[in-house]
């Protein structure tokens, strides 16, 4: 084990990712993630100070769309595919906590 990630980290991350994990899953996941992150030691050994991050595989800039309305989707078709709908809206259980 490289101790790059703890069970507490995994618990926190599971909450951020909205994934309910049972205690034994947390344990297994911690070991697996740690095993994967261990390989990052190779990268940590590199001198990357002067390297710019690469965020775009093909250099494009200023890609736009004209501000013109196009036909959209049919509400009834979309709501029919939803787990729950009511009064033309998606229905969800009560929302706890504030908006982002």
């Amino acid at each position, binding site marked *: 084990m490289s101790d790059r990630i703890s069970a507490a980290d995994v618990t926190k991350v599971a909450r951020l990712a909205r994934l*309910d994990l049972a205690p034994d899953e947390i344990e297994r996941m911690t070991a697996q993630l740690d095993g994967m992150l261990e390989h990052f030691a190779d990268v940590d050994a590199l001198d990357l100070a002067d390297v710019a991050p690469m965020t775009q595989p*093909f250099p494009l800039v200023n890609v736009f769309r004209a501000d013109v309305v196009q036909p959209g989707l049919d509400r009834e078709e979309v709501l029919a*595919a939803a787990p729950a709908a009511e009064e033309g809206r998606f229905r969800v259980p009560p929302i706890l906590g504030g908006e982002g």
Partner: protein
Amino acid sequence: MSASKPTAATNTPTAAAIAAAVRAGTTKAADLVEQHLATIAAREPEIHAFNHVMADQARAAAAAVDAQASKGHDPGPLAGVTVALKDNMCTRGIPTTCSSKILDGWKPPYDATVVQALQQAGAIIVGKTNLDEFAMGSSTENSAFGPTRNPHDTSRVPGGSSGGSAAAVAAGFSQFSLGSDTGGSIRQPAALCGVVGVKPTYGYVSRYGLVAFASSLDQIGPFTNTVEDAALVLDVIGGHDPHDSTSIPQAHPSLTQAIQQDVKGLRIGRITDLPEGADPDVQERLEAAFDALKAAGATIVDVQVPAFTFGLTAYYLIAPAEASSNLARYDGVRYGLRVEAADTDAMYGATRAAGFGDEVKRRIMLGTYALSAGYYDAYYGKALKVRRLIHDDFERAYQQADVLLTPTSPTVAFKFGAKGDNPFSMYLCDTYTIPTNLAGHPGMSVPFGTGAEGLPVGVQILAGTLQEPTMFRVAAALERSMS
């Protein structure tokens, strides 16, 4: 078990020949579809290449193509040519599951751009193929609907994640298929199934309607029996799409024409610092490929791509990071699975826990962690810098060589369960394919004989940005050398 031919089915007619006959009215698309449906009926129960066979839709589409041809209208360059689509491409009104329980039963209300392009070209979609859930895997064992078997040996995997698409072509279920390649998911299964598989330059083919795994890496590409078929398919599905901001705006030169040229004078690069690990049978075929190209008039040059070896590590942070965000939309609100609970947060947690398989969960967790406060710079930020190193190293190599040749997969098709419980041993399957995705460059796998136990071996051809024409010339030369 291992009854069928180990190499690509070269005795089948080319897509171009089929389309020409259908356009001329001398062959009926309806008959072609029936032949393929019969093959599917015979062998699909054993192979499980499909999540969904579209027999009725295929028959209707074939009838429409035949009607057009008989009226003297041109049904298009892929008239009557059958295609199977990886089940992560949206098809209007047809289930699109990504082999995940979370999308089981979902029918998209729209078509992916590639689907529209294929239909306009007269191609006939026969079904949606199996994959590792959300394209995460290298064996198609991660499908929520059971694995696909390799047509060459059904005790072995077809590779992944586009295992169903590779197997469909190898088994003759369709003339060609489409897959998606994020870290090798077209090239590796193509190698393991003995067919041609192409990952184009990032932005060559529209991603609109391709269910995202890792947006900055995903590309759609074809599986075919021949290099010529791959060229024709890419000529049809490549090109600018105003619905994809990352789609390359300029027109692409015809690959069908490019493969008419030989390889005399081309410089074929051998990466001298390539990570080790390829099996001897695979290595032997790579050497044979170098020899074949030399015999065809190319020169072999040694190049170095030092950062190649860091590809796997960088990829396994970048791809999961993007995936963790891309897969956050599966929340049980608007479509797909919902597990009811007392409040929305509980509903999210329960739905996502029930809907995603282990590998998907693992990658969501890893990606969420890599982006989270306090860890971004240490992991995701560094991985992006490594990505730059890899890209720049490749660019330098392409100053010296027109293409690079490597193994596609370190091994031939392996047995089910062979990679055991350690996820990283599965990830090693993609050692040779991943760096290309990070660089945004094109790559393809060409079947080049057999290795251990007569199983197919693929050779990978890599090229610089938009150097598909050169890459295809080399592929065609390798193919010719085999005949």
